[in-house]
């Protein structure tokens, strides 16, 4: 795991400028700029409702932006749209099927993302990181919520994707597993990966911080009524 050969494109850059987003008639943030490149860690901080999850889903391409641009480039070519194949999103929901064992869940995820069947060894290594090896063949329905959360984190080492978008990844993790996650993130960065994490707690990883509170729209702006009332 300490092997730091860069396996991802070291020329990858992802940036957003002047981003604004609305949800359900409410302006979530505006004038937001960020930039990350291969090997970067960016943590999103800010109070509840400041749009951390919204920004992650915007970057992943789930949400339309109201204005601004997101640009994505790798060595040699640039594009202003995002390739979903490069993202991995770990959110509040864990995407696990309760009737399946962890091995079945993880294998399906691997097949879904890569089209091939994972080697047993690969599953074993990924499960080991979050101390899930003894649970691999247990049905997920008997897991505690902490175990489910770790099962979701297990995808990170399982499938190689350059950009990790993480929403509160440390919630419900004990000290050992937090350390394991921090080590995993550091390894990913050393391999040229990019991590953007929305978090309330320090993650134990050095990187840039984007304070979402500074992009809060000022309320009571009257031109809001006529132009962008939806």
């Amino acid at each position, binding site marked *: 795991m300490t092997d730091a050969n860069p396996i991802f494109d070291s020329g990858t850059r992802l940036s957003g400028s002047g981003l604004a987003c*609305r*949800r*359900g*008639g*409410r*302006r*979530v943030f505006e004038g937001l700029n960020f930039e990350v490149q291969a090997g970067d860690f960016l943590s999103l901080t800010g109070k*509840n*409702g400041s*749009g951390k*999850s*919204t920004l992650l889903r915007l970057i992943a391409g789930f949400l*339309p932006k109201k204005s601004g641009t997101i640009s994505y480039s790798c060595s040699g070519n640039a594009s202003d749209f995002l390739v979903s194949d490069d993202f991995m999103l770990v959110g509040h929901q864990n995407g696990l099927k309760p009737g399946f064992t962890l091995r079945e869940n993880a294998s399906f995820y691997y097949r879904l993302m890569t089209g091939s069947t994972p080697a047993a060894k690969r599953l074993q290594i990924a499960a080991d990181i979050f101390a899930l090896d003894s649970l691999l063949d247990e049905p997920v329905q008997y897991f505690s919520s902490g175990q489910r959360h770790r099962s979701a984190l297990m995808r990170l080492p399982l499938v190689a994707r350059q950009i990790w978008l993480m929403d509160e990844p440390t919630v419900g993790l004990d000290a050992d597993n937090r350390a394991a996650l921090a080590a995993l993130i550091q390894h990913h960065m050393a391999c040229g990966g990019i991590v953007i994490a929305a978090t309330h707690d320090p993650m134990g990883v050095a990187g840039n911080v984007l304070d979402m509170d500074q992009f809060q729209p000022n*309320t009571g702006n009257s031109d*809001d*009524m*006529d*132009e962008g*009332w*939806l």
Partner: protein
Amino acid sequence: MHRFANPAQFNRLADAVMPWAMIATVLLFGAGLYYALIGSPPDYQQGESVRVMYVHVPAAWMGMFIYVVIAVASFVALVWRHPLALLAGKAAAPIGATFTALALITGMLWGKPMWGTYWVWDGRLTSVLVQFFLYLGYMALWKAMDDEEKAGNAASILALVGVVNIPIIKFSVDWWSTLHQPASVMRLDGPTIDGTMLVPLFLMAAAYQVYFIVVFIWRMKLEVNNRKLSVMRGSGMEN
């Protein structure tokens, strides 16, 4: 297109059109009802009950026309992400559903003296009934979600699916009813429509049309104001 993106612009236009539409509604309904009830002769075959037609047929036309309005609004809303178009569909739907219901009810009342029964599964009645169900679905979907924009987008997709399906449904139902019905059923299309009947028919159709414009503008203004209110209250969804 984007000149009307602005609700203030819309309000100005609506206020300009409104008085004329109201006057036209009163005049056309007056003339239409006079010709429909008094000024036209009874049918030689159907007698006085032919007068139901002047209420019934334009209502069925309006039911179809308003569905097309909703479909066009839905298309605009989905393609150009135009919020006003989203609300236009929402505002038009209950009016269209009401016209469709009116067509069904008057059709049944007309059917009793004509066919001896309130309902026959004839092609026309059946496809109007299916269209009424499509209206109900559209309105129910709008009501089903708290997030207005999501609800409107879903309803718009449904409206477009419906508009693709209406010709297929119409074809299948017509085909089905000719398989199952003896050909003796009274039908409207035929050489029986006389010039004296066309005058009240078109007057009533025009009256319905301007009536639709009046109610539609009212409902649009209501929706726009509701929307503004909810934005002012800041009742946005938490992310």
